């Protein structure tokens, strides 16, 4: 029956409309990075809905952070970068974006200080792997962590989002750079079949 408020999915669509200057960025890589971040939010719309928080922007950012952390984990598992562990000298890119990501996380966390219950319900509705990523992000942004600047909460929305887009762009670059031949699916079989026709 009729709803009074927008659903979480529609709220994310609204977020995309509100920030469409990112979607219309001059560089294709930026546009794609933003679209991918929005896809992270869509994928975790159930958790956003379950949180029932009035801080919709922060909740969306949180899903984006979790998505980024998951992707960074994957890269770490492939030995491409070190995200959770201390970066070694000469290791590609990790120092570039880990502090930035944690700064954004700290800012989001500080904004959600009064939303402990909502944060708990949000986390409860995440899939297990996402819960683990969120737990790691929370652990890394404890107040005594040296990586977090004191003025994190004062960062503007646009600055937070810009930072995330940059991190996404970098992750995509790394993924592309180290992309192997193990493309998913049956594309190779299909190509072989068509070649044999």
């Amino acid at each position, binding site marked *: *029956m*009729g*709803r*009074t*408020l927008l*659903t979480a999915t529609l709220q994310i669509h609204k977020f995309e409309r509100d920030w469409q200057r990112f979607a219309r960025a001059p560089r294709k890589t930026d546009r794609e990075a933003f*679209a*991918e971040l929005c*896809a992270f939010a*869509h*994928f*975790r*719309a*159930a958790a956003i*809905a*379950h949180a*029932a*928080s*009035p801080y919709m922007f922060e909740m969306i950012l949180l899903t984006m952070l979790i998505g980024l952390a998951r992707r960074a984990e994957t890269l770490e598992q492939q030995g491409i970068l070190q995200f959770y562990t201390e970066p070694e000298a000469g290791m590609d890119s990790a120092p570039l974006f880990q502090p930035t990501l944690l700064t954004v996380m700290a800012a989001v966390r500080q904004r959600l200080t009064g939303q402990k219950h909502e944060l708990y*319900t949000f986390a*409860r*509705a995440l*899939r*297990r792997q996402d819960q683990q990523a969120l737990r790691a992000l929370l652990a890394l942004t404890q107040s005594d962590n040296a990586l977090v600047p004191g003025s994190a909460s004062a960062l503007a929305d646009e600055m937070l989002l810009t930072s995330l887009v940059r991190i996404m762009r970098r992750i995509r670059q790394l993924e592309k750079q180290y992309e192997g031949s193990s*493309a*998913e*699916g*049956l*594309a190779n*079989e*299909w*190509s072989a*079949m*068509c070649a044999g*026709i």
Partner: protein
Amino acid sequence: MNRQRVSGWLLDVYAAPDNGVSVWLTDEQGVTHHFHDEITPYFFVAGSDSQLRAVCEWLAKSPYPVKLERAKRHEVFERREIVVLRVQLGRANDYACVVRRVSETFPALRYYHADLTVPQFYFFEKNLFAFARCEAQVDGAGRILEIESRDSLEGLNYALPPLRTMTLEMQGEKENPQNPAHGYRAPFVVGYEGHEYVLTETSPRWMLQSLRAHLVRCDPDVILSDYGDSYILPYLSSLAREHGVALPLNRDSRMRVRSRRAQSRFSYGRMMFQPESHWLFGRLHVDRRAAILFDDYAWHGAVEMARISRRAFQHSARSTIGGAVSALENAIAFQTGCLIPWRKEEAEDFQSPADLIRTDRGGLTYQPIAGLHFGVDLLDFKAMFPAIIAAYNIGGETVNCSCCPDSWVPELKLRICKKRRGIVPQASELIVKRRFGYKKLMQEAESKELWEIYHARDAASKWCGVAIFGFAAHTSAKFGLVTAHSAVCAYAREFILRAKEKAEARGFRVLHIITDCLFLTKPQTTNEELAQLAQEIQAATGLPIALEDRYKWTAFLASRVDPRRSVPNTYFAAARRGGIKVRGIAARRHDTPAWIANVQRELIETLANGSTRAEIAALLPQVMQIVTRELDRLRAGHVPLHLLTIACSISKLPGEYKVNSLNAAVARQLDAHGITLHPGERIRYVVMNNEAETDRDRAAPWALMGEGQDGYDVTFYEERFLRAVETVLAPLGITAKMLRDGVAKMLPMPVMQKQITAQATTYFGPLFAGQR
């Protein structure tokens, strides 16, 4: 006085033309009996003493014989007994008229029991229902002295009377009937006792007399028609009047065929259309094309629905599922001595913005992880929402009661009454019991026929279960409230999360969640482990959950617009026990041409032969063979036209379309032929040339297609076909470009056909090929 006892099934009940009700019983030999019984309907009025006195004075001066008395009845939302004026009618037929006139004169008062029908009163008072086995004692004049039910509404394995059924339809392909209301013309076909008789209309009078003879000879209890409501019955009635032939459509010769106008309404975000209906008296008429969900649960489901909702069969068959649920709730309120409000006046409670954000949520749906997954198991809560309503006593009148301060709904600032059982929960309990009962009977069924009967009855109960939850927040749900709806959703969210947590704790990966079911995967999992998981979840939630199916593989689809996003409830899967399951793709959509839907299913069935990635890879040449075979058929013009028809509902009147869509083009053509279309009505058409400028050249209405008209837009159908194929191949990592390149290589389009389908202004024929 010559008294007799008659035992049989209740076939039909309606207000008699003089007074009281006409009751039709069918006995075990199939003989139908017509009796008369008395019933005096009543309604209640609530207001201040002076207001009620004014109503009494007005009624005393009115021409209607009424009996007035002061009464006390339970008002469900006030949770107490209130003083009301009971207005009992002297004549059953005055009921609706008196209610209308009193309510128009005194609009500020509250009315109860004011929109029941006379048969409903009769059923409630005598504890009867449609097709109830009963025993009547009648006098020599056919008046019922006593009637008693020998049947129980809780009964599942009930017998039905031996009914004589006649079919009435128009000649044509049975699986492909065309709507006569949209201009299709063919002789009528009457069928009974295993024979079919074609009534040619060379002479209308002769045709009518022939039909009359069939009606007299068969004397059917039930007339099952195709388009009987929208065309056949009104046409025959008018033709019979014109030619002075008395057509005995009704068994009761005192009555005229009753009709109700067609109506369009906006419901659940789309325009719906209910064609005009024609009710018979003494025999039942069901239009298979117009009866609600008849294509889903057929005759036995329709009977079950009438029994559950305790309404006359013909009324039930033409009503919505929400109407059936409402009628069931009315029956429970009547039995429990509660007042049945005429119009809901309960407003939603005030909520703070923070409370509203928490409350205004539905069930949880997790986006699927797009792609092909092997070894997927589906766990499904059985009748989750009605079970929650019944188990936690959630109804409009039980939410936020003052007597139970500690019974909180999870996450919400809502309380549920534990002391008084609500009306909606009682209705839910009945539905849940029936569902589980039929599931058990289906497992124990000794024959396929019996299984099908239980399946149809279960489907009717299932739809009631679906509607009882959704309907709770509807404006016309008399015993529902938005807050009650929100409370049910809160419980549903809590239970699905508990289920997710239990599954993840056992090492399952959650692929997708749709409100009450979970798609899980875990390598090497066994039936025993899944049964243990189901038991754990059941213990944690208190709701029955079962392993719905195990799939060899499941393909969750990504969005066409943005492949980074997955689409909920859009997937196809190959079951381990054989067969496929598809949801949300072209094969399930009503507007997909049958040819495309069939091919899409065939492709999935072909892939379903593979269980591993390697096996599926080995099936790709077979898939490509089907694709090229069908594409070749399409390009050669060998696909039958009826398999290419597109059926769509129009959302507005033909003249109101601003965008020149295919629907608009077809609606305008039908309108030009003098066919009255209503918003929500379904039209069928074949696309002739989507790029053409005139409506006539673009698409042809199926009902108006003549002998000489053939051909279709190859490009249009090819595009839709390839999209359907893409849907199947995309989860395998085969992109649209790869598919189209493969098709172009394997099945190049002939030069001539390429020119025909090219976006050119003129085609000069094969002689001038290449010279444009």
